[in-house]
């Protein structure tokens, strides 16, 4: 499954968005789309399981978890060289 699709799949299951996560744009603000800070914890933990990574503290920002593009960039950084 392509990375963006996998991310959207996790958002659909954990982010509690008002909009359909499968059609959400890469740069849509997920917090404005309804993701609460508590839901973002679930999104982070689900992403870690799915991609076998651990987000370091330096990545726990709205810039990273606020958009599909931000999440993808962070996962790409964490999985680089595999």
């Amino acid at each position, binding site marked *: 499954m392509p990375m963006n699709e996998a991310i959207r799949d996790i958002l659909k299951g954990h982010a509690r968005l008002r909009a359909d996560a499968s059609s959400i744009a890469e740069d849509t603000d997920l917090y404005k789309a309804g993701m609460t800070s*508590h839901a973002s*914890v*679930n999104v982070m*933990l689900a992403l870690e399981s799915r991609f076998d990574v651990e987000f370091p*503290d330096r990545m*726990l920002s709205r810039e990273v978890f606020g958009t599909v593009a931000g999440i993808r960039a962070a996962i790409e950084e964490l999985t680089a060289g595999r």
Partner: protein
Amino acid sequence: MIADYDRLANILRAYYTARVSFERRRHYSNLAPLRSGTDIVDVRNVADSIRTFGERYLRRVFTRDELKYCASIANEGGDSVPHLAARFAAKESVMKVLRPGPSDAIAWKSIEIIRGPSGSCAVRLHGHARALARRAGLSGIAVSLSHEQRYAVAVAIAVEPSSMKAGVCDRATRRSTCP
């Protein structure tokens, strides 16, 4: 459930009344302005996260001492989940007081809610959260937590030093520009 909403509405009403009252007093007494943050958490969402992610969720969000306190509630036969939810709400309310920018990374554990002997709660900051508070000149953050079976709420308040500094600057400017 309606009773829960009524209680929540009463808590929020009391908070806003207190805030308005304080702001009015500030207007007349020239006190420093406040930073405030509030958050509400559905206790069932915390229970769901514990069910889904277990220890990973708990260890990622809560400090050892926070977990120790909540475990003591469970050991005494109580339900620890509303206490965990209240602590999460408190962390988020403190986050709103700190006002991080989009690139500021704040780990949930860097905002720790500690419980004093009297039962009141206080905030202990670590890492970047502590740095943000220092940068803003916040000398301390007060926090209050409350929960029912369904919802947990928290309010955090800090005093900004900006107006006091502005006053000092104004006086300094006046001294330097007026003979």
